[in-house]
């Protein structure tokens, strides 16, 4: 491996504020404002628009040199005022950037001041709710930005409720909180499963519509959809919280448990057989509901497909990379299929990642020795790929350079996917999503190894010496 200690080459993570947008954009009627310089919002809008192929409006406090020297108070207030004026949102998520953090703006205090000046109260029924989260770009990654923003959201409603929090009105619902941003298609699938099992649920954050909006008769300023305010406010009253993802800490779920006593349980993102089984089992445990026939059939179809493809996939060496919990679940699935994940990597720094990955290998295929890396960039991934020599890469589109250079096929999953269409519709969760993923992986391998289709001599001249067509028929 190329030894590098100081320089990052081709990053495998994005910065915290971007993660916060992925969370905030899943809340109904919400605008996001980055407190920092103009470029942050534009770059992250570009990044997200490219991936989801949707307009992505994110405001900026557009800090200038003056703001940086004297503080960003006036810019932030002006930004908030203008966003309210033009977009009339119900919620504004304010995420800080490195600039705002380093000049030391006290964002919660500025927001308090702003609310006083504008006469904005704390009544979620009628007042605009402004949620701030501290997400300097120099801390952790987009994954932590996402997690922190979700925590800030549930915290905000707790603050607003104040003393009333002691009085809980059980709603019998399930809080469903993924620890990483899922694709809109994944969110839709999980909601469908919940509707058929738990019936009453609150999914936070719901980007299924906001980042995959149908063409409508009008162009709303803020894409419709997302978890509603009343739902979020109702989360403390839920029967339980189910977190998707077990590598990263689910701060929102922990907060609901610690502060309100909502029992919380985290399961892996339901990709693959055992992870999806796990997910359904938890739903049954929590609600005592039966597993609907539809899903038994889907499970059966997945099993059927796993049997159909087992010989194509056995021993196929895979390198998988991306956000920690996605990678964890993908790895589990590949092990179940008989594949050999030789390289398992994430861009986030995470001590738990290696431990959890090794544990799953131990459970399913103890004889295999994977290379497990965290905190990687694509340059070190490239080195690792050359050491491990996989047959297939599975991860986001930034692995395309490695795939092309080494002539190894790439199955695109995760974020970002900038070089293909349909990122917002990639389904990997549930039995159905696992089946789709299985088909994609298998067909990619078949496509790459298919040398039989083109005959050596394509022209029928080879038959010439054997007589004419009529003679042959006799």
């Amino acid at each position, binding site marked *: 491996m*190329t030894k*590098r*200690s*100081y*320089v*990052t*080459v081709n*990053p495998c*993570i*994005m*910065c915290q*504020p*971007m993660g916060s947008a992925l969370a905030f954009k899943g809340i109904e009627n919400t605008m996001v404002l980055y407190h*920092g*310089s*103009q*470029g*942050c919002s*534009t*770059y*992250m809008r*570009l990044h997200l628009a490219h991936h989801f*192929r949707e*307009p*992505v*409006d994110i405001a*900026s*406090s*557009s*800090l*200038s*040199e003056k*703001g*940086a020297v004297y503080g960003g108070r006036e810019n932030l207030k*002006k*930004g908030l005022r*203008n*966003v309210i*004026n*033009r*977009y*009339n949102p119900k919620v504004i998520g304010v995420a800080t950037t*490195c*600039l705002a953090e*380093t*000049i030391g703006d006290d964002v919660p205090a500025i927001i308090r001041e702003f609310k006083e000046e504008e006469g904005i109260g704390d009544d979620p029924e009628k007042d605009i709710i402004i949620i701030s989260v501290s997400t*300097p*770009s*120099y*801390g952790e990654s987009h994954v932590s930005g996402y997690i922190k923003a979700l925590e800030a959201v549930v915290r905000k409603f707790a603050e607003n409720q104040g003393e009333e929090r002691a009085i809980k009105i059980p709603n019998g619902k399930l809080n469903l909180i993924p620890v990483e941003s899922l694709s809109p298609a994944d969110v839709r699938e999980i909601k469908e499963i919940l509707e058929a099992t738990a019936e009453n649920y609150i999914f936070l954050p719901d980007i299924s519509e906001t980042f995959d*909006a*149908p*063409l*409508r*008769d*009008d*162009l*709303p*300023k803020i894409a*419709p959809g997302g978890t509603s305010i009343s739902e979020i406010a109702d989360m403390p009253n839920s029967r339980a919280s189910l977190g998707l993802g077990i590598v990263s800490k689910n701060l929102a779920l922990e907060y609901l448990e610690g502060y309100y006593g909502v029992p919380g349980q985290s399961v892996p993102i339901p990709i693959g057989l055992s992870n999806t089984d796990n997910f359904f089992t938890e739903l049954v445990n929590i609600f005592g509901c039966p597993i609907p026939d539809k899903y038994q059939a889907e499970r059966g179809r997945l099993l059927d497909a796993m049997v159909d493809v087992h010989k194509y996939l056995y021993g196929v060496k895979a390198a998988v990379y991306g956000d920690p919990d996605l990678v964890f679940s993908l790895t589990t699935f590949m092990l179940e299929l008989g594949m050999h994940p030789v390289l398992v990597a994430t861009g986030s720094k995470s001590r738990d990642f290696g431990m959890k990955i090794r544990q799953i290998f131990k459970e399913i295929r103890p004889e295999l020795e994977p290379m497990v890396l965290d905190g990687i960039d694509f340059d070190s991934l490239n080195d690792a790929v050359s050491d491990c020599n996989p047959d297939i890469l599975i991860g986001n589109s930034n692995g395309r350079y490695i795939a092309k250079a080494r002539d190894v096929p790439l199955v695109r999953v995760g974020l970002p996917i900038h070089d293909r269409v349909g990122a917002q519709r990639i389904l990997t969760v549930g039995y159905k999503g696992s089946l789709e993923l299985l088909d994609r992986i298998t067909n990619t391998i078949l496509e790459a190894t298919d040398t039989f289709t083109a005959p050596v001599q394509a022209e029928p001249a080879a038959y010439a010496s054997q007589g004419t067509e009529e003679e042959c028929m006799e």
Partner: protein
Amino acid sequence: MKEKAGIVDTLEERQPYITRKQEKGQTIPLACDNNSLAGAISQRACVYSGARVVLNPVTDAVHLVHGPIGCAGYTWDIRGAKSSGIETNRSSFSTDMKEIDVIFGGEKKLSNAIDELVGLYHPPVIFVYSTCIVGIIGDDLEAICNTASQNHNIPVLPVKSEGFKGNKSDGYKAACDALKKLIKIPPKEVAGEKKPEVSPQVRNPKINILGDFNVAGDVWLIKPLFEQMGIEVIVSMTGDSTAKSISRAAEADLNLVQCSGSMTYLAKWMQKEYGIPYLSASFFGIEDISLALRKTAEYFGSKEMKKKAEEILETGTNRIMPEISRVRERVKGKRAAIYMGGPAKALTLIKGFAELGMEVVIIGTQTGQKEDYEQISYSVRNGTVIVDDANPLELAELLVKQKADLMVAGVKERFIAYKLGIAFCDFNHDRVVEFEGFDGFVNFAREVDASINSPVWKAVRQRTLKPEAMELKRAAVKERISGEPHAKEYKNVEDMAVEPEFLHPNMDAATENQVFGEASR
């Protein structure tokens, strides 16, 4: 009630930035060249982005971003600037500053990073970009770069592009300042021999093309035209350039400036420093290509060269004209909206659209200056809306009100157009085919045709399925089915309008609601 005095409904402070074409001789009442308004959702990026887009096409340079990971991550290989050789520029290098670096300073990490990169890549030059945070914690980029230059004997050039210290234009300047340091004094200058002020009969004429970034390979369609005229193109800045080719730039007799917004500053400096004059030029569209070639031949003054230029223009034009005419028949009379980063591209697009028989109804830029907008106003037809530093809501409303059929802009604007059911052409980083030169113009024309004349726009006019409207055509099927239909009867055929209202807007106050929906108000 808010007063709706302006062309579109927007923030009061934004109103001065939107106007219409002015009568000849009148100054344009358009505010521009200011920092973006907080909360207005500008489409602009920052100082760093300006510097990065200008310098990034330098192919053999290491572009090291001193800052947190985001700044490098979002700019990794996002500009489709092609290279004929090495592609070091397509990798993203960052010092990935963490909290500890912010507290204790990032100087040590930066200088170690530079050492490491020199060892790994042996680049001929390193550009070190400063980001917001560097400007705040005060790392001494200049000192570190100077030391590294001496230690490694290559130019390690600081690019002062702290995101908040101005806007994109300031980033262009920072990039040019770095380029200046790469340009070497030409041999004859060293000997103390000053070039004549104007050199009409230069033996081996040499030029630089400033402000062409070789997106999709544009430069490769332009360079041969000059070479056929007997002119050597020393370097195109910065498309497909190298540290070495840039260093030779001062040997040129003339600079042709295409992207005026980013490169006029450098051209002026080269004129002052080395006595190299510059001409503005564009290589997009038949008219502007012709102008560029004729101007250049005129400058060098050789009869032979002028003749050659005419030959090239005649051959090229004749070659592409059948295809251009074919497309023209298919797109003429359509209405275009232009929203560009810089004014030069916006201006040349006006002519390009005219060559396709199209008219421009909206034109805007992120970084235009007063004189650019004067020229834009002079070049467009009456009624055209001119806008500086527009935001998504303004653009959406303008597209509808001005009844645009096609928008030319970048990725962020693309989906605004698409959601409104309007054709789109990417003239930014994302395009994969050349738009410059004769063949480039054919590519452009074809893309405009493909987008405008796609059948999808007809399909998206009906955004909800109205079975009752479909049934009218197929009454026969219905009759063959016995029993009562379950569906309720629709009484009013008028209710079954197939087109969304906002595609046929009135120019009154109700437009806003039609565009953006009552719900969002």
